[in-house]
């Protein structure tokens, strides 16, 4: 009975998946600072508790590196992203929100909402219920 209760709570938590965990969206990112960047993937950190995609973007003839936070690797896999589907060298478009500090030293930091690949396919790269604005990126919010 105890095991069933434990599993039930974990299962409910899993599906609701509201992330106030390592950090909530509002603690680190600015909902009033949306970003829409296009650039080349130079590094992917496929790690818990958040995957990170590093994107090199040309802005005003300079190369700026954006470090974009995604959901957990398992969440991304459920969304259709694997570590092999974001290959370095691929040019992607990322929508998201910049960090509150807005300092781009040594790199800009953002919370990613979705990635659009060269073939036009778009994948949600966040986690549901993080406190990020309801902007249509998360298919579970529609």
């Amino acid at each position, binding site marked *: 009975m105890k095991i069933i*209760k*434990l599993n039930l*709570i*974990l299962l409910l*938590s*899993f599906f*609701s*998946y*509201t*992330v*106030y*965990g*390592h950090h909530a969206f509002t603690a680190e990112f600015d909902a009033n600072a949306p970003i829409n960047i296009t650039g080349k993937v*130079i*590094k*992917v*950190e*496929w*790690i*818990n*508790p958040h995957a990170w995609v590093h994107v090199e973007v040309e802005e005003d003839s300079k190369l700026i590196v954006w470090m974009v936070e995604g959901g*957990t*690797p*398992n969440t991304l896999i459920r969304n259709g992203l694997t*570590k092999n589907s*974001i*290959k*370095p*060298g691929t040019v992607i478009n990322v929508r998201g929100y910049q960090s509150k500090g807005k300092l781009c030293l040594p790199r800009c930091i953002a919370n990613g909402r979705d990635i659009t690949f060269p073939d036009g396919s778009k994948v949600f790269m966040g986690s549901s219920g993080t406190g990020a604005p309801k902007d249509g990126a998360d298919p579970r919010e529609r």
Partner: protein
Amino acid sequence: MRYLLLLPLLISFIVVAENEHSDMHDLMAHMLTPASEAIWESSGYVITEQGEFSLEPANDEEWEKVLYGAKVISESAYLLKIPSRSENKNEWIVFASLLKDVGDKAFEAAEAKDVEALFQIGAELYQVCVACHQVYMNK
């Protein structure tokens, strides 16, 4: 034997908790977060144009850090369950038990040097953290 080194730390937390009801934030920030990061930082991959690199521990010393983190997570469940912290908080006790289970699994995976298991357990650990924070973080 080496985990006896944990005892003074654990006892100090218990003493502080019983006497002063130590701030939960401190326990999370200085004990559970570093322990969790020891698990998360020891598995996963970094992928660049040069190739894919595993973050798995490279030697026994690095594995020992993972074992230490796993044991801290597992044993901290008892700290979370002491009466002053858990009284009338049924879900809290359930989450603490889940944390112990995850810590134990991480310890077993680290002993077996099973990196893939450790990666999956890292995800599970985050789920437990998030589930508990969802209920209690702002209370």
